[in-house]
């Protein structure tokens, strides 16, 4: 995405078109309009962040309070309310499942791209088909099975489910990165007498490591935000951040500022990851279909 942006920018500035466009009043208006639209669209998030720094008395006013003295009190309150455990659970489930996805997914993507197996299309189709089906159809037996083996309210249950949830996307996405490795490079390496393992380690992995990083970030986003499995499979011990937030539902209107502080803590890690990975986000979400 970024490369095309670059080439376009350079081609459109060649004959000074860009300069005349910038001075054109219609262009300025369009820019202002775009900014207003973007700020309006973003405003709910900004409001959430502002509310998190308010006192409860400032948070629930009508009309809304725009000028206030910021306080960190709400963040202290949510830590006192026990946000620590869900925070750590979310962190653990996210990191471990992402590592598992990469451990299973990188070799699979390799087998489906550079040294393709027979029936590659079938395998790819199978992976993607698991994303097509509604999760509700599996939740009941999963609940029963997990209950029978005594794994309810256990973070490892979520880790396994999150790995299965992200693996198909990761395989598709990483396959599209592997396919970009130039074949001549591999041939040259094998002519130079490099073993398969050497060329994987020294030619392929360095080339696709940005792709792997992007894939990992996408997995992090999905795991961190996941709610359906978490709410059905966990109670107290393995509670994750989204489930912790539901605890505020009954007291809505009473602890708005505190709820906002907890929401900010829940959203912040993913928002930052997403900002970093924004160029690769589409490819991840579209199963690697778009570059």
């Amino acid at each position, binding site marked *: 995405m970024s490369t095309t942006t670059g080439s376009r920018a350079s081609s459109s500035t060649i004959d000074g078109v860009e300069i005349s466009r910038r001075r054109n009043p219609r262009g300025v208006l369009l820019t202002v309009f775009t900014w207003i639209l973007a*700020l309006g669209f973003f405003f*709910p998030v900004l409001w959430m962040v502002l509310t998190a720094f308010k006192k409860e008395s400032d948070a629930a006013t009508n009309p809304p309070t725009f000028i206030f003295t910021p306080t960190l009190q709400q963040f202290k309150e949510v830590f006192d309310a026990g946000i620590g455990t869900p925070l750590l659970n979310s962190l653990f489930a996210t990191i471990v499942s992402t590592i598992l996805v990469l451990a299973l997914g990188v070799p699979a993507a390799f087998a489906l791209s550079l040294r393709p197996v027979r029936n590659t299309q079938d395998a790819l189709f199978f992976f993607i088909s698991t994303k*097509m089906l509604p999760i509700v159809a599996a939740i009941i037996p999963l609940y029963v099975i997990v209950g029978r083996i005594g794994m309810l309210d256990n973070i490892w249950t979520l880790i396994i489910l999150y790995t299965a949830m992200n693996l198909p996307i990761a395989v598709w996405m990483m396959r599209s990165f592997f396919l970009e490795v130039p074949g001549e490079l591999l041939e040259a390496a094998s002519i130079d007498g490099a073993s398969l393992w050497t060329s994987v380690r020294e030619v392929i992995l360095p080339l696709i490591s940005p792709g792997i990083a992007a894939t990992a970030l996408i997995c992090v986003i999905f795991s961190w935000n996941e709610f359906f499995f978490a709410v059905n499979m966990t109670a107290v011990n393995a509670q994750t951040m989204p489930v912790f937030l539901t605890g505020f539902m009954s007291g809505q209107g009473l602890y708005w500022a505190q709820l906002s502080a*907890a929401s900010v803590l829940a959203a912040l890690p993913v928002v930052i990851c997403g900002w970093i990975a924004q160029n690769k986000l589409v490819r991840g979400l579209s199963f690697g*279909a778009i570059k």
Partner: protein
Amino acid sequence: MSRAEGWRRRGPLLPALIFMIVVTQIPFLFTLFYSTQSWNLVRPGSRSFVGFDNYTAVFTDAQFWRVTLNTILLIVGTVIVSVILGLIFALLLDRKFLGRGIVRTLLITPFLVTPVAAALLWKTSLLSPTNGLVNWALSPFGVHTDWLSQYPLMSVIAELVWQWTPFMMLLILAGLQSMPNDITEAARVDGATSLRLFRELTLPHLRRFIELGAVLGAIYLVNTFDAVYMMTSGGPGVSSANLPFYIYQRAFLGFDIGQAAAMGVVTVIGTIVVASLALRLIFKSFTGNEEAV
């Protein structure tokens, strides 16, 4: 390819394949089995084989049809509106202007906010009848509505549109930026108007990206649960419940495993029918893309 070589190639694939089969396919077989059982956790020892009775009950359940309709409305409504908004945003972003990077970052943020937090934000800060921002902003026009109880499904759709527009925008933006420059330049030199350029060059080029966005959006939206659960809990009645929420209610609040399983199977069959049509579209997209590479 020799047999040994075949296995050496297959080796790296097998762990992932086996893992996915075990975790995703076995539960579904159980769902099929449970759907033939009369099994309510509240009545222990009452479990028995009832054949297709659960399915009959599902199909004669008026609420189930209402919920199915809600699910379709929710998916179609969200996809259409977020594609249109996403297209507008993408077109606005596809020009050079001051702070373009920041604007793009602002616009994608709703997609990243934890869905549960986003749903709570909409419920409490935006749509609340007493001190919600929407009513406050509309008060000069004399609007004062309890959005969540009067328009529950629309409220959920509005929140989902807010979350999904950035995804559509990113996808369509990728499409716009993959457009070959020389053709549009040539058309412009030939004196084509912007509108004509858009209708006859840009839109046809974007079609593939819009289709892909609609299909992927629908795939993700079939599983919508957070927004319904947090904003309306499916209510009032079942007026804003979708299939995942309704099945969840049957299984985890009504403890009716057999019925919930049957509904799950019906949902899957419905999704397979729709998805196999959609898959044809999406695969055309994928292969088209690979040819282009």
